[in-house]
């Protein structure tokens, strides 16, 4: 068990190394002079030279990579070209809204999707099942920003129930925080909920066909006890796995959702960085998001032993 945890943690190192290599080589794989690309179309020769100097582009590649990784390991993500501030500081300033949005989306979609999937599997073939499956296909097909605009139209423009956009920190009160975060969470959570509902249904159908479920029912156990205590507990591993994998999609969605709802998080930082071609910021954000994804999936893998004691390593 302990050796498994150690091995699993060590296995994240090559993955992060590939991520770092990809992020580093992006600038150098692209056609043309990286400094000229970053500087943009209107830059003068002096601008380009200044950027080349700042990024250390005149040194050999392996030295550049070494210095970059060394700085990275010390938490130094470089200096933003546009604002001249450390990237790590810029990212730290923007983390809170993004984390708040991600967590509330996770809560909303898991709380909605798991009961839907359980019900659909229990009443397989019924109208409930059909309705959940229709939701799953639709939820998967309506892009997050389209859904976001539909929600804004319904809840903010035509009824005035919720604020159109913006973000309020939880420290400034729960009510304003919730009223601002609910629409973005619903918009972002739709795809996620569709996926989890579908996986829950499939996993539950598998488990419900097992003998021990029939035994539990035969001995007269109440339906809810069979469904939750016996079935859902045993169906949990695939569901948790898909939640971990789908976090990547969630992160992609965050960028768009923050743009639509004008939330000042990492997604907005990304979009601003693209428009200004502020490459150190883009690199830093990719690294942070990927590290978060790798870490979450590490936790998911480690959770298997607690969810299913039969799994031994």
């Amino acid at each position, binding site marked *: 068990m302990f050796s498994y945890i150690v091995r699993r943690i060590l296995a994240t190192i*090559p*993955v*992060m*190394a*590939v*991520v770092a*290599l*990809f*992020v580093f080589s*992006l*600038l150098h794989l*692209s*056609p043309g002079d990286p400094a000229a*690309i970053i500087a943009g179309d209107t830059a003068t020769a002096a601008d380009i030279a200044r950027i080349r100097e700042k990024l250390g582009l005149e040194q050999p590649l392996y030295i550049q990579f070494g210095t970059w990784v060394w700085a990275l390991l010390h938490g130094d993500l470089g200096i933003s070209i546009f604002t001249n501030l450390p990237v790590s500081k810029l990212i730290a300033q923007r983390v809170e809204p993004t984390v708040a949005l991600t967590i509330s989306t996770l809560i909303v979609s898991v709380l909605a999707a798991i009961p839907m999937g359980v019900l659909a599997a229990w009443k397989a073939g019924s109208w409930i099942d059909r309705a959940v499956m229709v939701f799953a*296909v*639709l939820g*998967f*097909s*309506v*892009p*997050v*920003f*389209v859904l976001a*605009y*539909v929600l*804004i*139209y319904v809840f903010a*423009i035509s009824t005035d129930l919720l604020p*159109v956009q913006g973000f309020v920190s939880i420290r400034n009160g729960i009510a304003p925080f919730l009223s601002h975060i609910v629409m973005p969470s619903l918009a972002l959570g739709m795809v996620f909920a569709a996926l989890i509902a*579908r996986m829950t249904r*499939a996993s539950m*159908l*598998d488990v419900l066909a097992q003998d021990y479920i029939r035994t539990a029912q035969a001995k007269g156990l109440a339906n809810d006890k069979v469904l939750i205590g016996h079935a859902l507990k045993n169906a949990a591993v695939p569901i948790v796995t898909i939640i971990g994998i789908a976090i*990547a*999609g969630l*992160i*992609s969605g965050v*960028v*768009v959702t923050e*743009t*639509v709802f004008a939330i000042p998080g990492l997604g907005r930082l*990304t*979009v601003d*960085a*693209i*428009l200004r*071609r502020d*490459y150190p910021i*883009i*690199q830093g*954000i*990719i690294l942070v*998001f*990927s590290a978060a*994804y*790798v870490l979450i*999936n590490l936790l998911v893998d480690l959770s298997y032993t607690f969810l299913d004691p039969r799994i031994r390593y």
Partner: protein
Amino acid sequence: MTVAPTDLAVLAAPRERSRGVWAYIRRHPTIVIGATLLGLMALMAVFAPLLGTVDPQALAPVQRLRWPSATHWFGTDMLGRDIYSRTVYGARVSLTVGISVALLASGIGLVIGLVTGFSRWTDAIGMRIMDGLMSIPGILIAIALMALTRASLENVIIAITVADTPRVARLVRGVVLTLRELPFVEAAHASGTGFFRILWRHILPNTVPPLLVQGTFVAASAMIVEAILSFLGAGTPPNIPSWGNIMAEGRSLFQVAYYIVFFPGAFLSITVLAMNLLGDGLRDALDPRLARRM
């Protein structure tokens, strides 16, 4: 329980599959619905100039921000361009990107999957690289690549392909690893069949069904990613009308003129839905065991 002889006969004789178009539709409704919708979208894209459209880039400042009416079915944007024409032409971008990315990612993913599935040495390296790439959220890969290159339709296609290929490669590798252990492949190997013949006759045909299903889902997600990139200003250049572009231009005006965002958004959703329905249907048709569960 007694069983009447006639019942036994009915059970024994394999029920002849009813033929004809209607029977096919009844068996695979999602394939038919998805394919029909996609066919209509494709026709709309190809025959865009004949569908009562005007030049999608034609400016008419006098007629800017007109609500949908008989002359401008979907209204006009802040430069007076006709949204109906722009939306119809936008189908070209969406379908081109979706289909190109699906074909490219499937082709490249197939090659990587076959090579890594057969050689231990490349597998160790190749799959670590794929794992690394897959832990970067797809849109960020595409955004990073687009931020480096000039905005063009080709670059959008390349950027999304890079992000989508690792998933296909992993799928193909999994299929190859499973097939290699199956008796019919071992038998072919034992009877002296050459490597390339095994690859061509036994392995490749079996990768087609999962690739076909995966390809439709890749196409669906590529269309969404293209729209998102364009919406964020890092995708299709503004001189080509795409659904994401039109929505980006309507973004700041949403509270006063939500129709600008609504029409391209609806077309995008319908197209992605059609692609997903086709994929679901294909998966059910090609893997009946899975069909009952998902």
